[in-house]
């Protein structure tokens, strides 16, 4: 309860500071002041990343934006005469009012979409539960399909709805999607001796069942897996749940982002490195003096 208040206050204070500094970036006439308010805005976003438990991103935000990008901006401002815009009398144009109106329209549409997302499932459902009661989630996921008395479960304030259960189970099965998680999972028999592609087929079949709005009680062995009974399926989902719990613990750390970056998103990562190389070469070419100016080196 108290942490909820602190979280809400931290969010609103940071959000107000970020929006105010963003407004100053856009409204103030002096580019140096704009750049300094931009730092403030970037720091505000970094704090929001911390609130979102994305600590790696918060560190990157401060290093990359507040550090590198801002220094670049300030350097260019120093290289360019500042009085340019201040000297020009800005005459009001109908285009500007139109631009502001268009931007406000875009904001309204986006906020509308955001509020359509504030369905019960995003307010009080599995999303929230994950933040508030990790031990309850752990208990539920490990409990899935089969009661386990040795778990020390905190008394439940409100029972999980069937939708939340299905969503948690689906997330658990999704957690197995990565090959390395699939390999690392401690499979019980009879899955240990199964070929990986067969396990993947079973995982997809169970996910398909959950997508058809089945309740957990309706989930049985899918077609093609006649040798499996309900206890086997429960063991399967429990293994998925354990993989999911490992994933939950790791969220937001450098290790988690790095693992994704170097496995599933290796190609985009390498493409980004090529983009950086292209940017370096391009900027060097742009910065070089024109040969006809006599400055060729």
């Amino acid at each position: 309860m108290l942490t909820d208040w602190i979280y809400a206050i931290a969010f609103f204070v940071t959000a107000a500071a970020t929006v105010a500094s963003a407004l100053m970036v856009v409204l103030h006439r002096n580019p140096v002041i704009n750049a300094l308010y931009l730092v403030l805005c970037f720091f505000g976003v970094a704090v929001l990343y911390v609130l979102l438990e994305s600590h790696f991103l918060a560190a990157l935000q401060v290093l990359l934006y507040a550090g590198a990008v801002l220094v670049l901006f300030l350097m260019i401002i120093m290289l360019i005469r500042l009085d340019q815009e201040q000297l020009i009398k800005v005459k009001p144009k109908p285009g500007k009012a139109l631009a502001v109106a268009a931007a406000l329209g875009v904001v309204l549409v986006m906020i509308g979409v955001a509020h359509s997302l504030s369905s019960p499932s995003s307010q009080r459902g599995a999303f929230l539960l994950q933040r508030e009661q990790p031990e309850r989630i752990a208990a539920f996921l490990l409990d899935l399909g089969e009661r386990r008395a040795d778990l020390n479960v905190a008394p439940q304030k409100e029972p999980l709805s069937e939708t939340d259960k299905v969503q948690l189970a689906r997330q658990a099965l999704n957690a197995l999607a990565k090959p390395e998680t699939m390999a690392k999972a401690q499979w019980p028999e009879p899955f240990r001796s199964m070929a990986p592609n067969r396990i993947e087929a079973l995982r997809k079949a169970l996910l398909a069942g959950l997508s058809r709005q089945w309740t957990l009680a309706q989930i049985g062995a899918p077609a093609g897996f006649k040798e499996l009974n309900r206890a086997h399926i429960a063991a399967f989902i429990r293994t998925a749940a354990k993989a999911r719990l490992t994933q939950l613990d790791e969220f937001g750390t450098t290790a988690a982002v790095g693992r994704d970056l170097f496995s599933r998103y290796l190609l985009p990562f390498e493409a980004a490195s090529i983009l950086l190389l292209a940017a370096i070469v391009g900027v060097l070419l742009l910065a070089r003096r024109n040969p006809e100016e006599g400055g060729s080196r």
Partner: protein
Amino acid sequence: MSPIVIGLDHFLSLSAVLFGIGMIGALVRRNAITVFMSIELMLNSVNLAFAAFAYYRWDTTGQVFVFLVMVVAACEVAAGLAIILALFRNKETVNLDELNVMRW
């Protein structure tokens, strides 16, 4: 009094507001450097939305995307500011109204 629970919609609304402010800046301001800052603002708001989705889905993928957007933004700032500097060398101005040589 029950506390206000900060949900996905709060973060997305904030992101939308930041995006709108950046958009107004990019469309209305005439100083090329400030326009660039506004574009950075818009990229940041998109990053915030990515991070919010990652958090409320508890999935690291969104953070990977934020990382990639940051890389692209860094490239864009470096190249864009170099272009602005080259323009200033040739035209002695960063006022976008005067930089209309490509307009037909």
